[in-house]
């Protein structure tokens, strides 16, 4: 183990104590403007009009909506989801005091308070920077630029000027549609096609906001970029859309965090994330998904149906997905890489925790079209309570993709005897030169480990948290530090009450 990681550990555990507990189960008193309830062509027009969108955008949405009406939800996942009444929800909610902002000072103080409560590093002095660095005299100051999406609207994007000096465009997607229409049109819907799947098509029709990032040729983004999503309004779906373009030889690390208050009813979240990396470009995309999971009896919680895909278009391009999924009642999510570029690299590191009645069906697709393309998949599933946790992954090698390599490791950890862990790997190799390795393990936390930790002074929950974090270590260490800290804490919190 490197020194670096060790310090990260210590710093992480230090800072974990400071990061807010996930008790994000409050909703705030922000006045909200809604679109009329239900989903019709008028809803789509309403959203587009609210955003002052150009005509091409409206047409695109309407086309998607027309298709969506003819589609049916997928049923192949190992999920038990009651039928969703799409007419019984709001598709657009906007905080009334929504500012069009130059600086943070202009943000509704109530919104700022919420972000504060969430532990979000939105104000510069609030950045979780320079966490105690142990013996090496501290870590370099880290800064994170944040785009905050509140219900349907992006409310604040920080560090914009500094990013602009580097040539980086970091915007809400609604702004980008107006300001950079050629860039947006070039890639929007090109990575995840409009008709890709039921939820993606729905998103095309009703997406409300999201984030747009462009890193110009040869630029290493000077700071981490981050978006925080929060569903606040009741009965509201959230459909955000993210598009990240890494031009030749550029690099960006992007973080995404999500929370939602406790609600008795289920709320729908159907996002689409599209990434494209050109020659020698690299995108590191990290998610800590902490939507409200429902209560201990399985009432309420977010339905998280997300389509995330990366196009590794260029030679030597690389995309790395890291996700820590602890929230949501239902998670349906397969961040994927289409590896078109020669020697391109795709990575997927995932920790998915399910407790109580949560269900997760998550994994990845690595589509190897490029010669010499490589992929790594590390999936750690942790199931407790009555939950079900499925890894579903596809590794496909095209006929003329010579010299492809894939390594897949799927580990499942079970807590208690009522939960389920499932691994469903699909391997389709059409080129004999491919080297594909798949390893899978299933284990339980052993009584010996528990007692050893307890005999050293940890209570049951602390012991579980420690052991589970150790199990997930390979994935957690892929996260940028701020997120590693939050994620370690989250794993413990999500498993509260699951042992003992």
């Amino acid at each position, binding site marked *: 183990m490197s020194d670096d990681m*060790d310090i990260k550990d*210590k710093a992480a555990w230090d800072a974990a104590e400071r990061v807010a507990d996930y008790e994000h189960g409050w909703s705030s008193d922000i006045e909200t403007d809604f679109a009329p309830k239900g989903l019709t062509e008028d809803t789509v027009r309403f959203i587009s009009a609210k955003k002052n969108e150009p005509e091409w955008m409206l047409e695109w949405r309407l086309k998607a909506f027309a298709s969506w009406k003819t589609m049916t939800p997928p049923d192949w996942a190992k999920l038990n989801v009651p039928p969703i009444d799409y007419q019984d929800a709001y598709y657009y909610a906007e905080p009334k005091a929504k500012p069009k902002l130059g600086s943070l000072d202009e943000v509704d103080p109530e919104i700022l308070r919420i972000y504060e409560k969430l532990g979000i590093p939105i104000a510069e002095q609030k950045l979780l920077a320079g966490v105690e660095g142990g013996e090496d005299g501290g870590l370099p100051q880290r800064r994170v630029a944040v785009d905050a999406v509140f219900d349907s609207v992006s409310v604040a994007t920080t560090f914009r000027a500094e990013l602009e000096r580097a040539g980086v465009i970091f915007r809400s997607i609604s702004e980008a549609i107006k300001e950079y229409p050629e860039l947006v049109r070039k890639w929007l819907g090109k990575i995840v096609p409009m008709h890709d799947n039921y939820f993606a098509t729905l998103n095309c029709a009703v997406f409300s906001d999201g984030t747009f990032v462009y890193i110009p040729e040869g630029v290493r983004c000077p700071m981490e970029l981050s978006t925080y999503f929060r569903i606040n309004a009741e009965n509201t779906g959230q459909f955000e859309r993210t598009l990240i373009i890494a031009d030749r030889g550029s690099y960006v690390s992007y973080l995404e965090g999500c929370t939602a208050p406790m609600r008795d009813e289920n709320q729908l979240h159907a996002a689409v994330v599209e990434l494209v990396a050109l020659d020698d470009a690299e995108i590191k995309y990290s998610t800590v998904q902490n939507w409200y999971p429902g209560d201990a009896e399985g009432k309420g919680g977010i339905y998280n149906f997300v389509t995330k895909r990366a196009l590794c278009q260029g030679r030597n391009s690389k995309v790395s997905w890291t996700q820590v999924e602890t929230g949501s009642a239902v998670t349906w999510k397969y961040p994927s890489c289409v590896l078109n570029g020669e020697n391109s690299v795709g990575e997927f590191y995932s920790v998915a925790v399910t407790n109580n009645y949560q269900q997760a069906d998550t994994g990845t697709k690595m589509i190897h079209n490029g010669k010499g393309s490589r992929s790594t998949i590390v999936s750690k599933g942790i199931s407790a309570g009555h939950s079900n946790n499925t890894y579903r992954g596809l590794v496909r090698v095209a006929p003329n993709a010579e010299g492809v390599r894939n390594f897949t490791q799927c580990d499942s950890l079970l807590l208690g005897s009522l939960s389920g862990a499932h691994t469903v790997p699909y391997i389709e190799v059409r080129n004999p030169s491919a080297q594909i390795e798949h390893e899978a393990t299933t284990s339980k936390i052993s009584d010996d480990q528990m007692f050893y930790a307890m005999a050293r*002074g940890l209570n049951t929950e602390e012991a579980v948290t420690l052991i589970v974090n150790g199990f997930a270590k390979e994935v957690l260490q892929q996260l940028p530090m701020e997120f590693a800290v939050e994620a370690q804490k989250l794993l413990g919190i999500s498993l509260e009450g699951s042992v003992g």
Partner: protein
Amino acid sequence: MLQITNLHANVGDKPILKGLTLSLNAGEIHAIMGPNGAGKSTLGYVLSGRPGYEVTEGEVTFNGQNLLDLEPHERAAAGLFLGFQYPVEIPGVSNVQFLREALNAQRKNRGEAPLSGAEFLKVAREQATALGMDMEMLKRPVNVGFSGGEKKRNEMVQMGIIDPALAILDETDSGLDIDALRIVGDGINRIMRKPDKAVLLITHYQRLLDYVKPDFVHVLADGRITRSGGPELALELERDGYKELAA
């Protein structure tokens, strides 16, 4: 410090401890010897509160407190340390992280402020150095890939960092070569040979007792203490074996 009175305990449905009485005062080191399967490890587990080890009769007080009422982590916070016969591996968790978490959990339980990363590392480095363990090993996952001897040495580093009032050391000497034995013996003396501390040293061999001089030696056979004496009893056992003694 520790008062064990007529202790009976079952593992599963099987009675293992059958009326064990033993008393340790602060400042004393007691050695417990006995044949395999006599219940020595069971005694350590029962005293540290391992789930599945059920006390059916008897009492244990630790510094005046009813020990058996406490959860395992509370016993640790109260100053009890168990050196494991078979230390456990925890993949992905570094020793540093493990011990810092554990120590701070104990401190919190006692109402003390947590140690910062830097303070903790200072203590950890001192203890590792004293026991001839490389700091690099402390950064590795708990006991993973450690040799038998390294695991035992690691238990002593842990004891040094945690600095308990009472240590129960279960065959800490087994699996150690002669150099390591001396280092571990010195460590026990350095950390625990103090007027306010006590040690229950479970061992099969006289050779550890050459380094750590016990004040009392007890024979544990069939779930109870069958004989007690001074250091000379250990020599006698070494010479004659347990059979002779039981007869």
